[in-house]
């Protein structure tokens, strides 16, 4: 029992160390990658453009629900005028970075982990290495840089569409004056809120992309399964760990800002 606990702890420490090393090497490899801008652009497209529709839909509906629920809570205290404050601050500080990150993990992160897993399994990664191409620099580093851009951009889009959704349910459907709603939004959101939003989004982006890359890249390390099973197992793990990490990191960063 004690031994099991000790082994598990050791395992976690080792994996964390290994993961940190992996991230370090991925960033170091940036200097060795040729034609990096093109790879980054491609990664931005693969991560960003592909996920736009989903982010847009989730953003609008989150705003709609926030407007609806917020209106009914606030009207109990007769302060419907604060709806804009409620919607905007919840979106900017929490909902947008967290939900956008979770959506991106589900769409782009899982795909990335699976792609790397298959590339590992079919010796494509080994082939890159034998060509003298740094596989981390070619496959992973551009994604990390892209994540730094894509996650904040998607969070911003989420905020904008969420605010619009909030005004749709709050003022168009439930009758809060639209001028009151938007001026409350304007008064509520300060620079530090935006900074929190973007800092969170960028951190989630790098963390989740690195986790997905790590899981896919080491799909062959899995001892309990092999081949296609190992790829699916590592993809599942990538999504689960990334999602949990988003929530934990969200708490940690929030506690610094409050």
């Amino acid at each position, binding site marked *: 029992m004690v031994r099991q606990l000790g082994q598990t702890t050791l395992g976690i420490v080792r994996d964390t160390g290994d993961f940190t090393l992996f991230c370090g090497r991925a960033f170091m490899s940036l200097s060795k*990658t*040729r*034609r990096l801008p093109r790879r980054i652009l491609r990664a931005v497209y693969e991560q960003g453009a592909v996920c736009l529709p989903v982010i847009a839909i989730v953003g609008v509906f989150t705003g709609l629900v926030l407007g609806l629920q917020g209106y009914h809570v606030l009207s109990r205290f007769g302060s419907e005028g604060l709806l804009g404050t409620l919607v905007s601050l919840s979106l900017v500080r929490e909902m947008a970075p967290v939900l956008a990150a979770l959506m991106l993990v589900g769409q782009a992160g899982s795909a990335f982990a699976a*792609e790397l897993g*298959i*590339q590992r399994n*079919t*010796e*494509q990664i*080994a*082939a*890159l*290495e*034998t*060509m*003298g*191409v740094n596989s981390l620099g*070619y496959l992973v580093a551009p994604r990390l840089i892209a994540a730094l851009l894509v996650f904040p951009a998607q969070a911003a889009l989420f905020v904008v569409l969420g605010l619009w959704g909030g005004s749709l349910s709050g003022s168009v459907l439930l009758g809060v004056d639209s001028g009151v709603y938007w001026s409350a939004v304007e008064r509520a959101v300060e620079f530090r809120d935006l900074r929190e939003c973007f800092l969170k989004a960028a951190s989630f982006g790098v963390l989740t992309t690195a986790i997905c890359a790590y899981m896919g890249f080491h799909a062959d390390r899995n001892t309990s399964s092999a081949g296609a099973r190992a790829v699916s197992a590592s993809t599942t793990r990538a999504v689960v760990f990334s999602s949990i990490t988003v929530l934990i990191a969200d708490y940690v960063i929030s506690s610094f800002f409050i």
Partner: protein
Amino acid sequence: METTDFALEVEGLEKGFDGSAVLKGVSLRVPRGSIFTVLGPSGTGKSVLLKCIGNILAPDSGRIVFEGRPLRDPAAREDFRKRCSFLFQGNALFDSLTALENVALPLEQTTSLGKVEIFKRSLKALQQLEMKDFADRYPGRLSGGMQKRLALARAIVTQPEIVLFDEPTAGLDPLRRNAVFSMIAKYQRRFRFTALVVTHDVPEALAVSDRVALLNQGRIAFEGTPAAFAASSESGVALFRDSVDALHRTLAAIRSEQPATS
């Protein structure tokens, strides 16, 4: 010969997986500018040997020396990677890239050549292996032999000085098989490049090679010139070399049996 006359030297190489030894102390020396063929029955560790040399697998013990410098040294390894290329037994093609993109990738990522030059060289490599007509196809849409030729084109496009070929002719028809061996011979003539070839095509290998080794159960059972291989009376060598005679004998025995009467 001094040590630096060898492109590659392998000393006491051992490699096992999960406790079962595959390579049990393999040593060989590949002279620079030569074609060196490794023969051996399936599953004895030829691919593992090549992967250890190509730095894809880490050996458990032993030394691999590249032009007098051990590959453990990172600088030597880097140099080796730049000048060596590897043909995987399973081809290891990039399955999301077209044939042309596959061949262009090593040029794009390891040289600073311009776009046009990369295109020209890639196309030329494809042409050499009669793959030009399939430049826009994805590897998954190519036949087994075509995939092998594409992998060969990708391996030679960077004009490497050393190539590790793991079964370059598996799945090819006899004409193309000859073409591949002739290409290797031609390259050796022109650029004095070194080829370490693993193959099951014994007569072709004997014709084209400068040296031959037989790997059997994780050990080198024979190493020498093709002539010595052809003349060797060692039982392992004879068994492997004279497999066709053995087949004829077996067939004769089968045919001489009385057919079952019903």
